C-alpha cells in the first residue's frame, strides 16, 4: 500500500536540547579527519543523533525504517559551535515531493539549532523513501 504523505508537510516535532562537550567535538573531529581549529561543520549530525528523534520521527510519519535512504544533507551556519553550548533543536518537515514514477518519496527535515534563542545553525536532513 502506498505511503500516505498528505499530512507530512510542516509537521513539527518536540524540541530537544543537547550540551556540546570538548570530548564530543574532539572525537568527531578525529573521526572525520578535521585538521583545523574549531568544530567540524558536519558536527550537528552528532547532536541530532543524540536527540530523541530519528526513529521517532519516522514512526510519527508512518515511514518504515527499512525503506529509507539518506539522500541529502546540508548545513548553514550563523555562528560557530563551541564546547559548552546548550543547543536546542527545533525540527519540522520542510519539504515533501515524489519522483515522476511515484516510486520514491523525498522528505526533508529542517532542524534549526538555537543557543539562548540565537540561531546557530540550520541543518537539512533529506531522506528518500521507497514507496
Amino acid at each position: 500500500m502506498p505511503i500516505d504523505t498528505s499530512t507530512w508537510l510542516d509537521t513539527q516535532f518536540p524540541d530537544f536540547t543537547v550540551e556540546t562537550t570538548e570530548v564530543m567535538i574532539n572525537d568527531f573531529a578525529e573521526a572525520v579527519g578535521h585538521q583545523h581549529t574549531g568544530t567540524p561543520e558536519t558536527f550537528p549530525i552528532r547532536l541530532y543523533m543524540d536527540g530523541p528523534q530519528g526513529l521517532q520521527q519516522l514512526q510519527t510519519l508512518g515511514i518504515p525504517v527499512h525503506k529509507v535512504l539518506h539522500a541529502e544533507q546540508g548545513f548553514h551556519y550563523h555562528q560557530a559551535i563551541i564546547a559548552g553550548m546548550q543547543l536546542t533543536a527545533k525540527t519540522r518537515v520542510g519539504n515533501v515531493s515524489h519522483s515522476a514514477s511515484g516510486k520514491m518519496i523525498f522528505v526533508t527535515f529542517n532542524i534549526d539549532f538555537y543557543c539562548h534563542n540565537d540561531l546557530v545553525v540550520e541543518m537539512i536532513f533529506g531522506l528518500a523513501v521507497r514507496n
Partner: protein
Amino acid sequence: MSTSSTSVIELTTPSRDRIRAYAQASNDLNPLHLDAKIAQAAGFKDVIAHGMLIMGLAISALKQATNANILQTSHVQFKAPVLVDTPLFITYQKHDDRVEFNVVDDHDEIKISGTASLQQPANPH
C-alpha cells in the same frame, strides 16, 4: 566571476576502523555500517560507510586544499553507497567564494555531489 579548472585530491579511505570510530563519535550505530552479515542481508557486499562520514572527510579535505577555515554553507546529495575500503577521490572546482565538488570512487562513480561556501560565520558571543 572567476573560475578554476577541476582539481583532484585523494580522500582518506573509509577503513573498517574509521567507520567504527565514526559510528562511536557520531552515535550512529546503524548495523549496516558495523555488521557485515546484516549489510550482506541488505544486499551489500560488506559494510557501507556512513554518508556523513564521507561528507565530513570531504569537507575536511576541501578545507585543507582551499585553505578555508570554516565553511558557512555546505550541501550534498548522496548518490551511491560507499563500501568499506573503497578508494575515494574528490574532484572540485573553485568559483570565487564557493566550491563545487564530487566524491568519486576509483571507477569514477559519483558517490556524493555537493557545494560549499567559503565564507566564515560570525564568532560565537
